[in-house]
Protein backbone atom coordinates (compact mmCIF):
# COMPACT_ATOMS: atom_id res chain seq x y z
CA UNK A 1 0.00 0.00 0.00
CA UNK A 2 1.28 3.43 -0.91
CA UNK A 3 1.24 4.79 2.62
CA UNK A 4 3.15 1.89 4.18
CA UNK A 5 6.81 2.36 5.12
CA UNK A 6 9.28 1.22 2.49
CA UNK A 7 10.40 -2.25 3.59
CA UNK A 8 13.68 -2.63 1.75
CA UNK A 9 16.76 -0.46 1.76
CA UNK A 10 17.52 1.14 -1.60
CA UNK A 11 20.42 0.24 -3.78
CA UNK A 12 23.07 2.96 -4.26
CA UNK A 13 21.45 3.89 -7.58
CA UNK A 14 18.00 4.11 -6.00
CA UNK A 15 19.38 6.15 -3.12
CA UNK A 16 21.02 8.53 -5.57
CA UNK A 17 17.76 8.90 -7.49
CA UNK A 18 15.88 9.58 -4.25
CA UNK A 19 18.42 12.24 -3.30
CA UNK A 20 18.02 13.90 -6.69
CA UNK A 21 14.24 13.94 -6.25
CA UNK A 22 14.57 15.44 -2.80
CA UNK A 23 17.01 18.10 -3.98
CA UNK A 24 14.77 18.96 -6.92
CA UNK A 25 11.80 19.37 -4.59
CA UNK A 26 13.83 21.63 -2.31
CA UNK A 27 15.05 23.77 -5.20
CA UNK A 28 11.49 24.22 -6.43
CA UNK A 29 10.45 25.48 -3.01
CA UNK A 30 13.39 27.87 -2.74
CA UNK A 31 12.65 29.10 -6.26
CA UNK A 32 9.22 30.43 -5.28
CA UNK A 33 9.70 34.14 -5.79
CA UNK A 34 8.77 36.94 -3.47
CA UNK A 35 6.02 38.98 -5.21
CA UNK A 36 7.38 41.83 -7.31
CA UNK A 37 5.56 44.44 -5.24
CA UNK A 38 6.84 43.22 -1.87
CA UNK A 39 10.24 44.84 -1.51
CA UNK A 40 9.25 48.19 -3.06
CA UNK A 41 6.33 48.41 -0.62
CA UNK A 42 8.58 47.33 2.26
CA UNK A 43 11.07 50.01 1.26
CA UNK A 44 8.28 52.58 1.12
CA UNK A 45 7.12 51.58 4.59
CA UNK A 46 10.62 51.73 6.01
CA UNK A 47 11.73 55.00 4.43
CA UNK A 48 9.80 57.43 6.69
CA UNK A 49 10.70 55.55 9.89
CA UNK A 50 13.42 58.11 10.63
CA UNK A 51 10.74 60.74 11.18
CA UNK A 52 10.06 59.10 14.53
CA UNK A 53 13.37 60.60 15.67
CA UNK A 54 12.29 64.19 14.91
CA UNK A 55 8.90 63.99 16.63
CA UNK A 56 9.12 66.10 19.83
CA UNK A 57 9.21 64.07 23.00
CA UNK A 58 6.61 66.06 24.89
CA UNK A 59 2.91 66.11 25.68
CA UNK A 60 0.60 64.80 22.98
CA UNK A 61 3.55 64.23 20.66
CA UNK A 62 4.36 61.17 22.74
CA UNK A 63 1.01 59.74 21.72
CA UNK A 64 1.78 60.53 18.09
CA UNK A 65 5.10 58.76 18.50
CA UNK A 66 3.51 55.66 20.03
CA UNK A 67 0.75 55.58 17.43
CA UNK A 68 3.29 55.94 14.61
CA UNK A 69 5.42 53.15 16.01
CA UNK A 70 2.37 50.89 16.37
CA UNK A 71 1.27 51.73 12.82
CA UNK A 72 4.72 50.95 11.46
CA UNK A 73 4.89 47.58 13.20
CA UNK A 74 1.31 46.73 12.22
CA UNK A 75 1.93 47.65 8.59
CA UNK A 76 5.08 45.55 8.49
CA UNK A 77 3.30 42.52 9.96
CA UNK A 78 0.40 42.94 7.52
CA UNK A 79 2.77 43.27 4.57
CA UNK A 80 4.66 40.13 5.59
CA UNK A 81 1.40 38.22 6.04
CA UNK A 82 0.05 39.24 2.63
CA UNK A 83 3.35 38.41 0.95
CA UNK A 84 3.63 34.99 2.58
CA UNK A 85 0.00 34.17 1.79
CA UNK A 86 0.54 35.07 -1.85
CA UNK A 87 3.70 32.96 -2.06
CA UNK A 88 2.27 30.00 -0.17
CA UNK A 89 5.72 29.63 1.39
CA UNK A 90 7.28 31.10 4.51
CA UNK A 91 11.02 31.03 3.90
CA UNK A 92 13.65 33.29 5.35
CA UNK A 93 16.24 34.40 2.84
CA UNK A 94 19.70 32.94 3.30
CA UNK A 95 22.67 35.10 4.29
CA UNK A 96 23.95 34.63 0.75
CA UNK A 97 20.73 36.02 -0.70
CA UNK A 98 20.73 38.94 1.75
CA UNK A 99 24.36 39.85 1.20
CA UNK A 100 23.71 42.43 -1.56
CA UNK A 101 21.21 44.47 0.45
CA UNK A 102 23.42 44.18 3.55
CA UNK A 103 26.29 45.68 1.59
CA UNK A 104 24.20 48.41 -0.05
CA UNK A 105 22.73 49.33 3.33
CA UNK A 106 26.16 50.28 4.63
CA UNK A 107 26.00 53.44 2.52
CA UNK A 108 22.92 55.02 4.13
CA UNK A 109 23.86 53.66 7.56
CA UNK A 110 27.37 55.09 7.51
CA UNK A 111 26.08 58.22 5.82
CA UNK A 112 23.46 58.73 8.51
CA UNK A 113 25.97 58.20 11.29
CA UNK A 114 28.38 60.59 9.60
CA UNK A 115 25.69 63.25 9.20
CA UNK A 116 24.70 62.92 12.84
CA UNK A 117 28.26 63.18 14.05
CA UNK A 118 28.89 66.20 11.83
CA UNK A 119 25.68 68.13 12.43
CA UNK A 120 24.18 66.61 15.59
CA UNK A 121 20.73 66.58 14.00
CA UNK A 122 18.03 63.90 14.20
CA UNK A 123 17.32 64.57 10.51
CA UNK A 124 20.38 62.43 9.85
CA UNK A 125 18.27 59.43 10.82
CA UNK A 126 15.52 60.56 8.42
CA UNK A 127 18.10 60.56 5.64
CA UNK A 128 19.41 57.18 6.78
CA UNK A 129 16.05 55.40 6.78
CA UNK A 130 15.11 57.03 3.49
CA UNK A 131 18.31 55.63 2.01
CA UNK A 132 17.63 52.22 3.55
CA UNK A 133 14.13 52.32 2.08
CA UNK A 134 15.61 52.85 -1.37
CA UNK A 135 18.09 50.00 -0.83
CA UNK A 136 15.28 47.66 0.23
CA UNK A 137 13.06 48.70 -2.69
CA UNK A 138 15.85 48.11 -5.19
CA UNK A 139 16.73 44.77 -3.63
CA UNK A 140 13.44 43.23 -4.81
CA UNK A 141 14.02 43.30 -8.58
CA UNK A 142 17.68 42.48 -8.07
CA UNK A 143 16.82 39.44 -5.95
CA UNK A 144 14.19 38.23 -8.42
CA UNK A 145 16.75 38.27 -11.20
CA UNK A 146 19.83 36.99 -9.44
CA UNK A 147 18.87 34.62 -6.61
CA UNK A 148 20.65 31.30 -7.16
CA UNK A 149 17.35 29.52 -6.68
CA UNK A 150 15.39 31.48 -9.24
CA UNK A 151 17.43 30.83 -12.33
CA UNK A 152 16.26 27.25 -12.68
CA UNK A 153 12.65 27.84 -13.59
CA UNK A 154 12.53 31.41 -14.75
CA UNK A 155 9.55 33.44 -13.54
CA UNK A 156 7.16 31.73 -11.12
Amino acid at each position, binding site marked *: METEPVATRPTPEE*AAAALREAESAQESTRAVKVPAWYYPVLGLLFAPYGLLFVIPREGLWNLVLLASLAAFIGAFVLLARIGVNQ*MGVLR*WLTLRELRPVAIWSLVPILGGIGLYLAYDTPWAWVAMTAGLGVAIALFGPYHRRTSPYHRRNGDR
Partner: protein
Amino acid sequence: MSSTTDDGFNPTIHAPQRLRICAVLDAADRVEFATVQEQLKVSASVLSKHVSVLMDKGYLGQSRATRDRRQRVWLSLTQEGKAAYRAHVTALKEITGA
Protein backbone atom coordinates in the same frame (compact mmCIF):
# COMPACT_ATOMS: atom_id res chain seq x y z
CA MET B 1 8.65 -1.93 11.64
CA SER B 2 10.86 0.48 13.62
CA SER B 3 10.72 4.05 12.42
CA THR B 4 14.43 4.31 11.82
CA THR B 5 17.56 2.20 11.61
CA ASP B 6 20.85 2.86 13.38
CA ASP B 7 22.27 4.82 10.46
CA GLY B 8 19.23 7.11 10.27
CA PHE B 9 17.55 5.41 7.32
CA ASN B 10 13.84 5.99 7.85
CA PRO B 11 11.46 3.63 6.03
CA THR B 12 8.50 5.90 6.73
CA ILE B 13 10.13 8.95 5.19
CA HIS B 14 11.70 6.99 2.34
CA ALA B 15 8.40 6.43 0.50
CA PRO B 16 8.86 8.62 -2.62
CA GLN B 17 6.07 11.10 -2.02
CA ARG B 18 6.85 11.45 1.68
CA LEU B 19 10.53 12.04 0.99
CA ARG B 20 9.59 14.84 -1.40
CA ILE B 21 7.08 16.26 1.07
CA CYS B 22 9.76 16.37 3.75
CA ALA B 23 12.22 17.88 1.27
CA VAL B 24 9.80 20.67 0.37
CA LEU B 25 9.04 21.43 4.01
CA ASP B 26 12.70 21.30 5.03
CA ALA B 27 13.41 24.10 2.54
CA ALA B 28 11.05 26.50 4.28
CA ASP B 29 9.53 27.29 7.66
CA ARG B 30 5.99 26.60 6.49
CA VAL B 31 4.40 25.79 3.17
CA GLU B 32 0.74 25.98 2.28
CA PHE B 33 -0.92 22.64 1.54
CA ALA B 34 -1.95 23.81 -1.94
CA THR B 35 1.63 24.88 -2.69
CA VAL B 36 3.00 21.48 -1.64
CA GLN B 37 0.37 19.85 -3.83
CA GLU B 38 1.38 22.06 -6.75
CA GLN B 39 5.09 21.39 -6.21
CA LEU B 40 4.61 17.61 -6.08
CA LYS B 41 1.87 17.44 -8.72
CA VAL B 42 -0.32 15.09 -6.69
CA SER B 43 -3.98 15.16 -5.79
CA ALA B 44 -5.15 16.61 -2.50
CA SER B 45 -6.31 13.19 -1.29
CA VAL B 46 -2.92 11.58 -2.00
CA LEU B 47 -1.13 14.40 -0.24
CA SER B 48 -3.52 14.20 2.70
CA LYS B 49 -2.83 10.50 3.17
CA HIS B 50 0.91 11.02 3.29
CA VAL B 51 0.56 14.07 5.52
CA SER B 52 -1.47 11.95 7.94
CA VAL B 53 1.22 9.28 8.05
CA LEU B 54 3.90 11.88 8.78
CA MET B 55 1.72 13.55 11.40
CA ASP B 56 1.09 10.22 13.12
CA LYS B 57 4.84 9.83 13.44
CA GLY B 58 5.16 13.32 14.87
CA TYR B 59 7.23 14.54 11.93
CA LEU B 60 4.82 17.09 10.57
CA GLY B 61 2.50 19.69 12.00
CA GLN B 62 -0.22 21.73 10.45
CA SER B 63 -1.87 25.02 11.21
CA ARG B 64 -4.81 26.82 9.73
CA ALA B 65 -5.21 30.41 8.60
CA THR B 66 -7.90 32.26 6.75
CA ARG B 67 -7.14 33.69 3.34
CA ASP B 68 -9.72 35.02 0.91
CA ARG B 69 -12.38 33.95 3.43
CA ARG B 70 -11.30 30.32 3.16
CA GLN B 71 -9.45 28.17 5.63
CA ARG B 72 -5.96 27.36 4.34
CA VAL B 73 -3.79 24.65 5.80
CA TRP B 74 -0.09 25.29 6.34
CA LEU B 75 2.36 22.43 6.81
CA SER B 76 5.68 22.41 8.60
CA LEU B 77 8.19 19.85 9.79
CA THR B 78 8.46 19.45 13.53
CA GLN B 79 11.90 19.48 15.12
CA GLU B 80 11.68 15.69 15.24
CA GLY B 81 10.66 15.62 11.59
CA LYS B 82 13.58 17.81 10.53
CA ALA B 83 16.02 15.65 12.45
CA ALA B 84 14.53 12.46 11.01
CA TYR B 85 14.54 13.80 7.44
CA ARG B 86 18.11 15.07 7.65
CA ALA B 87 19.30 11.84 9.21
CA HIS B 88 17.57 9.95 6.42
CA VAL B 89 19.27 12.10 3.75
CA THR B 90 22.61 11.43 5.43
CA ALA B 91 21.87 7.70 5.38
CA LEU B 92 20.99 7.87 1.67
CA LYS B 93 24.26 9.66 0.95
CA GLU B 94 26.13 6.95 2.82
CA ILE B 95 24.37 4.31 0.77
CA THR B 96 25.47 6.03 -2.43
CA GLY B 97 28.99 6.16 -1.08
CA ALA B 98 29.08 9.93 -1.50
